[in-house]
């Protein structure tokens, strides 16, 4: 049996039960996050159905290259944290692989934030902030950008929380204050990270692809 009793915590008697509970708990939380972002997607969908042309015009005004690069970055970060999580689950020496992958994930997450920052700056310069001097003429385009700023902002906050969690694992792991091997926290952080990635996977077609064809 693995000597994971160091990780055992109240009220569990067996480590394997605690690990299952942790995984089950995070998945329930991810179900609630699905509805959290799902409600935002519903708001977008209803506004788009009610104002198709304005949303198409607004979609055209976004910079698709920023969106595509950012999506690629997040997909890669999902790869690295998946490898980290699966490596951590193995029994024999995989500590260096886990730490490098976690480092890559945090770096990619940070890169996403940086690219997002440039995109925000460009959007502000192009007067895409709803309000007085709004660039586009359609009134409902301001709804699109109202949602754009809110949804990408909330997503960025969730991503920042993810980066903090990953960095925490790296610091505690590197200084050997927690055992990385078979530590449920790595899998829980990975699952949370994948959710933030999936939210962005859905945001990409909603923000960057409307109106490209006309």
């Amino acid at each position, binding site marked *: 049996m693995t000597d994971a009793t160091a990780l055992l915590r109240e009220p569990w008697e067996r480590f394997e039960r605690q690990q299952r509970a942790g995984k089950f708990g995070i998945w329930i939380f991810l179900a609630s996050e699905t509805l959290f972002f799902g409600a935002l997607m519903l708001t977008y969908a209803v506004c788009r159905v009610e*104002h198709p*042309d*304005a949303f198409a015009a607004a979609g055209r005004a976004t910079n698709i290259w920023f969106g595509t690069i950012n999506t690629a970055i997040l997909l890669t970060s999902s790869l690295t944290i998946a490898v980290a999580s699966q490596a951590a689950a193995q029994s024999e020496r995989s500590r260096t692989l886990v730490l490098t992958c976690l480092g890559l994930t945090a770096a990619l997450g940070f890169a996403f934030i940086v690219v997002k920052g440039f995109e925000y700056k460009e959007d502000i310069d192009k007067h895409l902030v709803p309000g007085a001097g709004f660039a586009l*003429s*359609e*009134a*409902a385009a301001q709804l699109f950008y109202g949602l754009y700023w809110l949804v990408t902002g909330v997503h960025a906050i969730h991503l920042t929380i993810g980066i903090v969690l990953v960095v925490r694992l790296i610091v505690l792991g590197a200084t050997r204050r927690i055992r990385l091997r078979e530590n449920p926290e790595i899998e829980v952080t990975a699952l949370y990270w994948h959710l933030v990635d999936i939210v962005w996977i859905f945001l990409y077609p909603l923000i960057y692809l409307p109106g490209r064809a006309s």
Partner: protein
Amino acid sequence: MTTVFTLPEASTHAARVDGIFAILVVVSALTLALVFGLLVTFAIRYRRGSNAKRGRLPEIVNREFEVSWTAATGFLFVFLFWWAASADVGALTAPTNALEVHVLAKQWMWKTQHSNGAREIDELHVPLGQPVRLVMTSQDVIHSFFVPAFRIKQDVLPGRNTETWFKATKLGVFPLLCAEYCGTDHSAMRGRITVMGEDDYARWLSRQPEGDDLAHLGAKLFVSQGCSGCHAASSSVHAPKLNGLYGRTVQLSDGRQLKADDAYLRDSILQPKRDIVAGFEPLMPSFAGLLDDGEVQSLTAYIRSLGQEQDHE
């Protein structure tokens, strides 16, 4: 101060609503009597220490018993749904010959406007026995047009038209209330609906100050706001002509087809780039913010009247 114990049934719809209400009261009363009766009898008969018969439940009270009365309850409720829904679906759309009244709700007052231009504040005079269609919009927050005597209530939304209708069947004055919370004086936003005889109403209507009726007001706006520059029949500018437009289906540039009703005219004035007519450029400026809702309603009435003149010739 007379306490009200019964509500007058002053519209055709009221009678039907009261009918359904009565059925539901009977069903509820029976169910309550059953539940309370059982509770009390069991409580008394099987109180601790009483010498009533205990022991196992009788055989009939088993799984099938529970399944059957669950199904019975289910069928009763579905029947009630069907009964209520049929009454509702019947009363959805106003009859075509309904008298049209435009209602404008704004924070804490009701403005009503008859089709011939007569305007009232917190008042509405309607003829007996003739259906009245209310086309309502709000200038600020959500209000709700509630006339208990007619059993009608309809939220009034900003930026959109909502409709309801009634046919008064009793003479008299009935309270009008705002039923959707709308701020400080929500409870003061009340008015009166006065139902008059057919001829009294006609006399009252003619005595109203000779304000232009909606269509004439619309005509003046049509010129003063510069619509005639492009849309007048004589204008050389390549813009959609409005004669006979009302009620026709319009072919749009992106292939969709829309019926030119009130909502279409309103959208074309406030958000012209939304539905561009086939074969035309999206040049028309938006009038959102320049025209208040009352003026938009007058312009719509004027454009409608263009269509009607054509039918008369």
